[in-house]
């Protein structure tokens, strides 16, 4: 027993003394937490970035999947870690932002997370079946009955976007949720059981290219796709606020120099050839933001979604 006590005393002393002699990131591996299982969008972006980040930092980066409870379990693990820069994670934004706005318990205060960088940002569009007579959002809203849309779950970001944006457009919808994945929601449009679907442009692109679906609208503040109406065109540029982000953060109160080191390394990684190549192959829109801009954006998003609390609260 005394032996263990001595050992742990030595360990504690070593840990306490650690920062005194070593400089970030040289004395440990960096754990990059993915709050979902292997193979999803979050997993892929982290695993693609990991080698480039290793090169930029000169340290080993170990991606670790901590799935469960809609991405909150992984977020909690990052929140509770030491704020030494050796544990960082990717966050489900704005999924967690919305959960917090609707006062759902996510197990940690999102506002306390140290934001390090924004890696990618995706905007939304609405698509219908190629041979559908509907040409615009105005047509869609003029069918005389609530529009049927398809989605994965009510708390998915695209579903939240659909509910709020059609409310802004004053156009009633029935959001048919429960589809297995975003591909299934697009197939539901092809089968004709729903009228349209609102999804990230990158996901819809594949089906538009294959001739199965057709864009009618983009939630952007300028023309994003030639010949397709944008939110600005119909006088609702605020719809461009709806995005899906891949944001990297760490535990609360990380030292500023560590944040800068990580944030700079992520910038280098974003610009590296393998990451750029992967992004163009998969239709991912990379959009790097440094730590301060990311923090400001997260604050903005919280305020933005808080206004729609009433619409989003579980009925």
């Amino acid at each position, binding site marked *: 027993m005394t032996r263990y006590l001595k050992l742990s005393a030595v360990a504690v002393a070593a840990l306490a003394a650690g920062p005194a002699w070593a400089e970030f990131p040289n004395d440990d591996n960096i754990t990059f937490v993915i709050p979902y299982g*292997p193979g999803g969008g979050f997993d*892929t972006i982290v695993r693609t970035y990991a080698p480039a980040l290793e090169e930029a930092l000169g340290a080993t980066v170990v991606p670790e999947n901590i799935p469960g409870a809609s991405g909150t379990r992984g977020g909690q693990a990052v929140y509770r870690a030491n704020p030494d820069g050796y544990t960082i994670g990717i966050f489900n934004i704005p999924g967690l932002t919305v959960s917090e706005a609707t006062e759902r318990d996510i197990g940690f205060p999102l506002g306390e997370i140290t934001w390090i960088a924004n890696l990618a940002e995706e905007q939304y569009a609405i698509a219908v079946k190629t041979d559908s007579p509907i040409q615009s959002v105005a047509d869609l809203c003029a069918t005389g009955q609530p529009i049927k849309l398809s989605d994965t779950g009510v708390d998915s970001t695209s579903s939240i976007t659909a509910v709020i944006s059609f409310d802004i457009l004053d156009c009633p919808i029935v959001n048919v949720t*429960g589809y297995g994945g975003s*591909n299934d929601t697009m197939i539901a449009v092809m089968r004709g059981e729903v009228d349209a679907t609102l999804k990230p442009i990158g996901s819809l692109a*594949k089906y538009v290219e294959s001739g199965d679906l057709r864009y009618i609208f983009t939630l952007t503040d300028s023309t994003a796709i030639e010949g397709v109406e944008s939110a600005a065109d119909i006088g609702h540029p605020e719809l461009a606020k709806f995005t899906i982000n891949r944001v990297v953060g760490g535990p609360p109160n990380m030292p500023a120099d560590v944040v800068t080191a990580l944030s700079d390394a992520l910038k280098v990684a974003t610009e590296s050839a393998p990451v750029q190549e992967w992004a163009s192959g998969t239709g991912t829109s990379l959009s790097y933001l440094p730590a301060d801009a990311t923090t400001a954006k997260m604050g903005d998003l919280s305020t933005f979604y808080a206004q729609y609390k009433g619409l989003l609260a579980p009925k």
Partner: protein
Amino acid sequence: MGFETLFSAVVELFVGGSILYLLAGVMLGLCFGVIPGLGGTTALALLIPVTYGMDSLDAMYLAGGVMGATSFGGSITAILLNTPGTAPNAATCFDGYPLAQQGKAGLAIGASAAASALGGLIGLFTLLAFIPIAKQVVLTFGPAEFFLLTILGLAAIAVSVRGKLLRGLIAGGVGLIFAFVGSDLISGDIRFTADVDYLWDGIPLVPTLTGMFAIGQMMELALKGGSVAKEGVGSAALTKISGVGAGVWSVFVNWPTLLRGSVIGTVIGAIPGLGGTVASFLAYSSTVQTDRDPDSFGKGNIKGVIAPESANNAKDGGALIPTVAFGIPGSAETALFLAILVLHGMDPGPSILLYNEREIYGLIVALTASAVGASLIGLMLSRWLLLITRIDVGFIVPVVVAISLTGVYVLDGRMADVLLTVVMGLLGYLMIRFDYPRLTLVIALVLGETAERSFHQVQMISDGQALNFMLARPVSVLLLIAIVVTFLLPIGRKALTTRRNRAVSQP
């Protein structure tokens, strides 16, 4: 069609040394299959990060090797220890284990090997035949059809438990209750979780199944003692282990069973969310229902091994139908296969056959080679495997318990999964003791979620006119008829036997 691609995938497999990846996949698949708690999805999930640095085609060979081999590996444990190695092998226990107890494990393993290989081949040929019309096939099955298929599955459960209808219904009901724990997929409400956030995502299948079958069965074995093959039963025959050849041959003799199992496997495999457990169970129960002597099942009828084993390999071919059509997964394994493509910088979608033809055909070739290869390897090892049934269970129980609990922990690294496995193990043991069917509970757990979700969807899509909506869809009408027939068949047969008995006794 991509015959050239198919051909070049075959050539590359043998020329480029890629066959080593396939072999590694097969061996890994067999091991993960044999071990309760570990299955094809675990193996693939663990492999995903490893494939990152590989050529995408080699990654396909590795994945295909694993996918094709696990279900045969799992049947070995099912037959020898009454513990399915993977979920889809649960139905194989019904007749495989009684055969092992009678000292005829060789026969069962031979049949399982041949049925797995041939079922896999039939499934893949069906897939190749369906590639040109895969899109139409996928578009024919919407929420209405998914809902009716789950009802058909539940109906098959209800009538399959012969002579124990009430117990079967109770077990099925408990399974449905379990299925509804967690967040409601439509409304997002959290239900029945007792404030435990582990339950937000529902009661997971793998710990439930491993607990029910592996842990429950080990408790039963430990308390009984002895060895699996009963003392004295054909001990002379056991000393010279045989019957494997006869088992292989039995598959060819019972070709209608093989064919039915494979067709059911392919069709169910193509439906996302149902998967191999339901496929093999439906193959088993339909074989029992249509057999001239249904009472011989559960006591060591070889057809009871052939049907589920052909179905659970054929389902891999079926599960690829939605994949080649739209780049969507038909099973948990194909979801991970698509994840491997994404990790290699590809973006699976409706044009998957256009852009990823090389990988798709590579996977098909790997699956074909693996289904046959795993069975051959299994047959070579069967001499030694059979000895397991003669070892004192005192040696088997601790090993199986330790390995299965570790397996459950490995998948997500959650201690709560291990705890759930132990709880389900106790429940499983009680169900064995009091003679309640465990598979019924598990199938209901699998089907409950899809049933609930697609019912809600049909309600929304049809503006509350669900029945009218279904009656306007030809495939739905066919499924409705199938459900009615499933219920009427046993009643009809009973009436027939009563009349026949009366006719015999009267004159």
